[in-house]
């Protein structure tokens, strides 16, 4: 066999967020390219066990397993992962569906974290502690620091919900 008969195959790792039409050179690209990539990125985030870089055979994604209340989210993401770019939802539709779902608060009834439990005695003790020297600069400074700590404590608990 001569040198000219030697065939080479190049093996590259294609990120799973790359849509099929990017690989088919010459095909005209449309904004649905970003719809596919965005849905694939969200798929990776929802399914934390699948790291980016892992390739599925033929860009085939298994159905997204989410909570029952999140079925509309799973449906629109799987629709965005359609190989046929004509069948994918538009960016406007994707954004509107997910934004409506999020802001309507349907997930509120299925939250995985318990409601925030703040110490009811924390705030009164905060003022009584600084009452003795409230006219002094140190007292005001301590009060501000305490309020800041209280706010950060609230935000830690509320950030998962709000």
């Amino acid at each position, binding site marked *: 066999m001569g040198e000219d008969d030697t065939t080479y195959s190049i093996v590259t790792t294609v*990120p799973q*967020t*790359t849509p099929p039409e*990017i690989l088919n050179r010459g095909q005209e*690209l*449309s*904004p649905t*390219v*970003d719809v596919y*990539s*965005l849905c*694939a*990125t*969200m798929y*990776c*985030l*929802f*399914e*934390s*066990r699948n790291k*980016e870089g892992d390739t599925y055979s033929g860009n085939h994604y298994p159905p997204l397993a*989410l*909570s029952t209340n*999140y079925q509309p*989210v799973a449906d629109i993401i799987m629709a965005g992962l359609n190989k046929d770019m004509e069948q994918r939802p538009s*960016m*406007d539709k*994707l*954004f509107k569906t*997910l*934004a409506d*779902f*999020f802001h309507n608060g349907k*997930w509120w009834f299925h*939250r*995985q*974290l318990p409601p925030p439990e703040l110490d009811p005695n924390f705030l009164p003790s905060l003022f009584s502690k600084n009452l003795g020297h409230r006219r002094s600069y140190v007292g005001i400074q301590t009060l501000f620091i305490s309020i800041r700590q209280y706010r950060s404590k609230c935000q830690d608990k509320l950030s*998962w*919900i709000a």
Partner: protein
Amino acid sequence: MSYQSVAIQVSSNKIQSSIHEISVLSSLRDPAVATFYGWYFSRSSKLCLVFEQMAESLEQWREGFNEEGGPHKLPEQFVLKLCLPIMSAVKYIHQKGIIHRNISLNNIMISPDFSSLALVWLVTWVRMILRTR
């Protein structure tokens, strides 16, 4: 005097195409778009673009999150909340007639306190950063 870290992207393309890309970058004026500070020529006559610098990518954050013993799966409402600003940013650039083509976890940048979220993007040669609040 205060200093600020920036990200510098060195362009290897022709000047003619670079001018077009700079005009596109400059036209993206939106709260969701990070500041494009400007450009300059290096000593080796290469065009350098100056952008806002972000901390780490979402992929790096997620790996660190898993190493720290976080939950196996991220909370669903958290993922949704994370992705909505990015979707808004992509929608905005589509309205400007631009396609990203390379959205992935590695191209979404975050700040350590999650106060801002960024979408790094590669259009031919340019690295653009979209920031969402």
